């Protein structure tokens, strides 16, 4: 890939194919918030270029490269002022456009006769991309399971027999979890490390016990036989549930019994 700096795009516009570059710059102003949304609609530099070309009904085989380059650069500049993490591909394309433009400006000598149209490769890529863009739309329109039709779900009346279930070894679950940890950010794995399993399990059990329409007395959540550790685990689990707003704690007046209930559902 050639790597001319994008500033070459600021070269004066050329007469392309005997015609002067016609249209004055279109109204390119887009409010910043809208621009982000707008940007998300492009699948990359080729998609953006296609948009610029189609929007003005330009012939893809005979792109007024100076004009398109100018517009492309305006978009890229806008993107850069708003979005710092503009994909590098956009800048590579900017450099490529600048290079094509400068090559178009070169007078064609006898020696350079065997040279291709500087735009040929770009046009080929644009067309290639465009046909898969179209193919993607076609795929989206194909009748699709669970959107346009549903498979039959008729209940099977069958003989009473145990159906075999796959066997799973404990280490398979551990292995799966290890893979997740390796993929997940460090932050996530730290978070996982912090919470002990017994608290998590206690949270689950407690949640299953709690109901939204009745109260459970605070003391009844604790099993003293479990000893100090057990009580602490229960307390932490309860605090976690309160923190995550999964449970509510209610006390009608000071020193009155404390009750716990599952968090109220706002609707239904």
């Amino acid at each position, binding site marked *: 890939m050639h790597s001319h700096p994008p500033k070459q795009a600021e070269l004066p516009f050329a007469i392309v194919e005997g015609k002067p570059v016609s249209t004055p710059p279109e109204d390119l102003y887009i409010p910043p918030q809208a621009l982000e949304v707008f940007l998300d609609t492009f699948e990359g530099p080729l998609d953006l270029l296609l948009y610029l070309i189609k929007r003005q009904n330009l012939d893809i085989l005979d792109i007024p490269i100076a004009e398109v380059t100018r517009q492309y650069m305006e978009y890229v500049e806008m993107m850069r002022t708003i979005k710092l993490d503009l994909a590098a591909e956009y800048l590579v394309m900017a450099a490529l456009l600048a290079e094509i433009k400068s090559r178009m400006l070169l007078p064609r000598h006898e020696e350079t006769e065997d040279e291709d149209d500087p735009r040929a490769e770009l046009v080929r890529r644009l067309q290639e991309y465009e046909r898969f863009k179209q193919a993607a739309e076609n795929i989206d329109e194909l009748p699709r399971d669970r959107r346009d039709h*549903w*498979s*039959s*779900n*008729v*209940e*099977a*009346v*069958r*003989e009473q*027999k145990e*159906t*075999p*279930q*796959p*066997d*799973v070894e*404990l*280490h*398979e*679950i*551990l*292995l*799966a*979890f*290890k*893979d*997740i*940890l*390796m*993929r*997940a950010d460090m932050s*996530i*794995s730290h978070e*996982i*490390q912090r919470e*002990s*399993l*017994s608290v*998590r*399990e206690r*949270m*689950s059990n407690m*949640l*299953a016990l*709690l109901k939204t329409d009745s109260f459970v007395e605070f003391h009844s959540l604790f099993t003293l036989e479990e000893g100090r550790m057990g009580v602490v685990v229960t307390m932490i689990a309860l605090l976690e549930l309160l923190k*995550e*707003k*999964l449970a509510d704690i209610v006390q009608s007046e000071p020193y009155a019994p404390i009750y716990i209930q*599952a*968090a109220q*559902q*706002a*609707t239904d």
Partner: protein
Amino acid sequence: MQAEQLKKTLDAILLSAEKPLPVDKLIQYFRPEDVVNSNDIREALTTLEEETRERGFELVRTASGYRYKTREEYKQWVSRHWEEKPKKYSRALLETLALIVYRQPITRAEIEEIRGVAVSSHIIKTLQEREWIRIIGHKEVPGKPAMFGTTRQFLDYFNLKTLNEMPPLAEIQDIDKLYPELDFKPQNNEDNKEQEEQQNSRASEQ
């Protein structure tokens, strides 16, 4: 809606339904402009019942509603759906299970966030049918998503008294030492590629 169209629409609904549907549920499938009342539906169901007489299935009405079922007399053939060897669980299923084990209570969205891909309903359903996971509440956020946790059956299957007996994280990182007999390939970070391949081959085994 014309009787004929109503009948076929009900046919399609009943064929694809996952559970029995009573008339008052069936009527909710139609919009006001369809102009369908419960009598229309009952009539259409009667017609469907008649038209299904010569087929391998029948329209059955149970306490909870109408349901298409295969006919009793074909059960010995229909039962062969389940005669194959049990398949292996997919990588996606095992990872989902692992997250529910270690991060319960956890919502589907939270699982998806950590795994980076959508969790199929099929996986949740399989785990629920196996009675390894269950819904233990609903999170107080918009949409009130279900939160999942593991069950006693899960512990029983793996011979655990409590979840605390699951190996802690530190040991998972060193899983090769935990199960030396399994002879894992080296799986450090540099071996990402190999690991990815293993995952792929595992995924395709299901």
